[in-house]
C-alpha cells in the first residue's frame, strides 16, 4: 500500500516500562503495516522544530484498526508525543520503508533487540509465530529499568535471553555475547535485529562469522522519511559496488552482510 498522510485519533497512551506506548486509530495503516516499517510523526505542531520523527511500528492490530509505537521520551518532541492522550490526535505519515523479509516456510529465527529497538521485533515475533515459526530472542538494555518487556514477546517467543550492561537483570554483558552459542544451538535461518548502531554492527559481525544471514533495522537521521532528501543514506555494497541507499526507502531493514560499516 502507498503510505498515507493522516490525522489519527489517540486511542491510548501509557507508560511502558521506562518508555511510552502510544496507540492510534489508523485502520488503513494497520491493515498493510509490516514489521520493520515505520511511521513519520509530527512531534511539535507549531513549534520551531519542523521535521517529523520516525518511529518503528511496535504493533498493528488489524481487527481494531490501530497501530502502536513505543519510544523513549527524552527530547522535547518525544515528550510532547508522550503527553498525548485519548481525545487528542497526531499527524502521521505511513506506513513507510521496507520492513523485514519473512519467508513463508517454517523454521527457527533469532531476534536481537536493544532497548526500545525491541519494539519492531515484538511485531515481527508475532508475525513469525503466526506462520508457525520458532522464535528465540535475546533482548538487552543498560539496566533492568530500561528493558523492553512485552507480553506479546513472551507469548510468541520459545525462549528469551536477557542481557544488561550492569547485570541488574538476566546476564551481565552485551546481547552479542550469547549469540555464537545461540547460533550453534538453534542453527537459525535468519538473525533479525533492531537497536543502536553499535549493537547492530556487532550483531552483523557475529552473523557474518557464522554464515547466518542477518536483517537489521537501522536508525538514521531522516529529514523526510519519504525518499527525497537523501539525508538518511547508508553505505551498502550492492552488486560489487558501494552505494548510498536510503534508510527510509530501501531500508530501514538492510542485510547485515551488505552494510559497509564506517
Amino acid at each position: 500500500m502507498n503510505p498515507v498522510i493522516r490525522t489519527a485519533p489517540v486511542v491510548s497512551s501509557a507508560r511502558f516500562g521506562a518508555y511510552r506506548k502510544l496507540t492510534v486509530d489508523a485502520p488503513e495503516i494497520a491493515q498493510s503495516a509490516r514489521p520493520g516499517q515505520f511511521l513519520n510523526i509530527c512531534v511539535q505542531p507549531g513549534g520551531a522544530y519542523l521535521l517529523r520523527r520516525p518511529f518503528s511500528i511496535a504493533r498493528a492490530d488489524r481487527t481494531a484498526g490501530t497501530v502502536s509505537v513505543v519510544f523513549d521520551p527524552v527530547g522535547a518532541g518525544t515528550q510532547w508525543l508522550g503527553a498525548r492522550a485519548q481525545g487528542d490526535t497526531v499527524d502521521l505519515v505511513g506506513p513507510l520503508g521496507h520492513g523485514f523479509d519473512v519467508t513463508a516456510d517454517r523454521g527457527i529465527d533469532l531476534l536481537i533487540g536493544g532497548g526500545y529497538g525491541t519494539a519492531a521485533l515484538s511485531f515481527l515475533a508475532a508475525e513469525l509465530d503466526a506462520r508457525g515459526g520458532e522464535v528465540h530472542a535475546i533482548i538487552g538494555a543498560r539496566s533492568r529499568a530500561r528493558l523492553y518487556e512485552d507480553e506479546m514477546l513472551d507469548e510468541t517467543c520459545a525462549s528469551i535471553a536477557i542481557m544488561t550492561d550492569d547485570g541488574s537483570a538476566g546476564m551481565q554483558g552485551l546481547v552479542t555475547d550469547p549469540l555464537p552459542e545461540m547460533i550453534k544451538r538453534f542453527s537459525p535461518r535468519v538473525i533479525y535485529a533492531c537497536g543502536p548502531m553499535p549493537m547492530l554492527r556487532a550483531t552483523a559481525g557475529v552473523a557474518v562469522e557464522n554464515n547466518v544471514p542477518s536483517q537489521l533495522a537501522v536508525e538514521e537521521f531522516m529529514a523526510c522519511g519519504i525518499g527525497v532528501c537523501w539525508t538518511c543514506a547508508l553505505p551498502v555494497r550492492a552488486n560489487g559496488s558501494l552505494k548510498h541507499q536510503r534508510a527510509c526507502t530501501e531500508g530501514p531493514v538492510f542485510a547485515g552482510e551488505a552494510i559497509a560499516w564506517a
Partner: protein
Amino acid sequence: MGVDLSIALGGARLANPIVTASGCFGSGKEMSRFVELHSLGAIVCKTVTPEPRLGISPPRGAETASGMLNAIGLQNPGVEAFRDNDLTWLAERGVPAIASVGGHSVADYVRCVEVLRGAPGLVAIELNLSCPNLEDRGFMFALSDERTAEVAAAARAASDVPIFCKLSPDVTDLVAIAEAAVGAGADGLSLINTTLGMAIDPRTFRSKLSTGTGGLSGPAIKPIAVRCVWQVHRALGHIPIIGMGGISTVEDAIEMILAGATAVAIGTANFYEPAVSEQIALGLADFCDMHGISSLDEVRGQVKIEG
C-alpha cells in the same frame, strides 16, 4: 473566480507558478504518492552531474531551529540515467520538468546540457552554480561574476530550452553576479540556494555533519531569500526569477511574488508536509479570488516600502 495563474518562464509557459525546489522532491516519483503532480507548474528535479556521484558519508543532515542543515554532496545517478529514467517517467505523465545540472567545470555543465537536448517534457534547465557541499567550495561558480558568466554563456549556447542560473546568497554583491549571468545569456535566475551553516553537538564536541558545514534551508532562511529576490528584481525587473527559501504557505508564496518572483519553489517544507506543494498551488487561486487579484502581474514586485 477563474484567476489566470499561468506564467511565462523565459519562453516556457507554466500552468501556475508553484514549482518544486531542486533536491527536495526527487524527480516526482516518490512524491506522487502524496501529490497530484499535474497540480504543479513544473517539477524541478534533483541536481545531476555528467557521471554518477556516490555523495558524501553520513551523517548528512541535522535539524536546527526552523530549518535544517544538509550535506548530501550531489548524490545522483548521472545525467544519462536521469534523462532515460526520470525525465521519461515525467514525460509519460505529461508533467513539465526542469532539470538541474551541476559539475566542477564549464565542460561538465555543457556536457549535461547536451545530453538533455531534445529530452521530452523538459521546459528549462537550471544550472546549480551554488551547491555549498562540493569538495572545493572556493571554486563555487556563483561566488564569482566572471565564472558565472562563463558557464551561463556556454550552457546558453548548448541548450535548446531556457537556462536558469541558481545563485547563492553567500556573496557580497548578489546583484552583480545576477547581472553577469543575465548579460551572458541566462534566461532567468533561481534564488536562493541554501546558505552555508554549521551545528555542533555540545556533549560530544562533534560537528553534526560529516563535512563540518552544510546548507541551511527552511523557514529560517526565508527573509534572506525574500531580500535576495527583491534586490535582484529591482535591478533586473524584466528577468524571470524562481524564488525559493523557506516557502511553506500560500502567504509565503505571495510574499515571494511581491518581492519580484515569477515562480515560487517549495523546498524543505515537502520534507515535513509531503502534500504542501499541491496545497499551495491550489490555495494560491483561492487567495487571489479572495483578494480580488485577477492576475499575478498585479502582485509581482509590488511590495510597498514606506518610510
